[in-house]
């Protein structure tokens, strides 16, 4: 099912051309998950601003939405990715800080929680080091899969790239991550089945 209830996203967006306020339905459906994704990448404060911008841009471009796409998630994640991309330097800085110190600048930890977080963060530090070294394009594909739970074809739609490019970027990114985690042979084929 494409929506929680009622009309599909595409129908709501089409309806919003006549009744702009209907676009709030799209906001209500997806703002929370877009915020969560942005917060994981840039931190909650940046996500607060970004989520509003995502929906303002989406609203402005809604007349060009492909009504054949019943589900608007890929479209919205595409816009979010574009905005996140503008913060890529600070995103990478935060990964590097996590890799170096074991303390994640994105997580708002109190003082007591820091110690346990640091001890539990060994894998996180390795992951962060790997994420910092990925190209922005590879990182987008990997995190849209892992953190936004998009399917391959949805990632292709979100980033407006061929699905083959999604696969190749993902392969490259996962190879780097596996090498960083050092728990599998990076030459092994993908363990994740096609979704």
């Amino acid at each position, binding site marked *: 099912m494409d929506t929680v209830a009622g009309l599909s996203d595409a129908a709501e967006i089409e309806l*919003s*051309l*006549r009744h*702009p*306020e209907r*676009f*709030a339905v799209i*906001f*209500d459906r997806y*703002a*929370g998950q877009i*915020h*969560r994704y942005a*917060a*994981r990448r840039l931190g*909650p404060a940046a*996500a*607060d601003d970004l*989520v*509003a911008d995502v*929906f*303002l*841009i989406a*609203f*402005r*471009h809604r*007349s*060009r*939405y*492909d009504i054949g796409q019943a589900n608007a998630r890929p*479209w919205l994640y*595409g*816009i979010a*990715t*574009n905005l996140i*991309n*503008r913060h890529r330097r600070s995103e990478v800085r935060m990964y590097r800080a996590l890799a170096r110190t074991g303390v*994640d600048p*994105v*997580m*708002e930890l109190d003082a007591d929680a820091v110690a346990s977080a640091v001890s539990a963060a060994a*894998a996180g530090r390795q*992951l*962060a080091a790997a994420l910092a070294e990925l190209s922005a394009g590879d990182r987008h594909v*990997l*995190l849209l*899969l*892992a*953190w936004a739970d998009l399917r391959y074809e949805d990632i292709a739609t*979100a*980033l*407006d790239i061929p699905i083959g490019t999604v696969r190749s970027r993902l392969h490259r990114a*996962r190879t780097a*991550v*596996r090498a960083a*985690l050092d*728990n*599998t042979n990076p030459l092994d084929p993908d*363990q*994740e089945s096609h979704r």
Partner: protein
Amino acid sequence: MNDLDTLRTMRADVPPPSHDVLADARSRLLDRTGARSRWHPPRLRAGWQTAAAATIVVVLGVGAIVSTYERAGGPDDRVHASPSPTDTAQSVLARAAQTVARAPSASPATQGQYSYIKMVYRVIQPNVGANEDDMIAEFWFRIGGNVGALGRLHFEYETGDVLDMVRSNGQTVITQNGQVVTERTLDLPKWFRDDPDPSAGWLPDDEVATAPTNAADMLDFVRGQFPFPGVEFDTLVGLLTQPILTSQQRAAAYEALAQLPDLSLLPDAVDATGRHGVGIVHDGPQRTTLILDADSYQLLGYERLMNFDAPEEMSDAPELQRGSGTAFAILDLGVTDRVDERP
């Protein structure tokens, strides 16, 4: 646990957004949709033909192309170079790229300076005769951020009345024929009340600075800005109106435009002030016409009109009918050292 599973646990406990954060974002969206207040050009007297003006979201961006930008005052009756009969949109854009590439770039703007934009904005709704809704807008954008931006909307009515709205540092001052009037009597557009804001698609100047100087990379760049199909033309037009674009970046943008499908040539296009130029037309759900000076290939303005028949149930929405849309014409632009200073 494989690598993806491990990655999925990373930052899984990120704090959820507060109710206030989502409520604020939703409120901003509703303001933009016009659900709260649909803005119309202010009416100063009965009979002023502003009927059914659409909610206006100014789609400008305008840039310091060269310092010799033409001050337009009305229809332009100069003799212009015209495209030859064998010209195509692609050949004109190629010539435009060669021409602007030879032009000197404006001196790089420095932080603390302001990019200045003056334009005419027009609502086009032929079925309600709303072409008279011209507005002159001026904006000063602080280089390095929007802080300190100043916006001015200026209306000159057929009656001779002049209305000015100036927004700066969170304060709005409105004058009618030179006399300060209260804001309460006028419904200011939200995008102007918050902060003078050109559009949701306006690119930060540090992002514009990274725009490439060849066509292929330029197309990748604009597709990266708004990663869904069909918006390349509008995004490139928006880029052409950015203040700090260099001559080489501008040439690359023209070359990138030439690679897009669904282009045609309009040998004699007229902008919102009556200036003639050469039009590059892009047909999609909307018909967008980029209007360039036929000699210098400076951007004069552009027009975006609905290009499909709206469904029957939308027949009472004038802004959605075929041929309705918006147009703007750039009157002046450049870089200034202070707000309220003109190049």
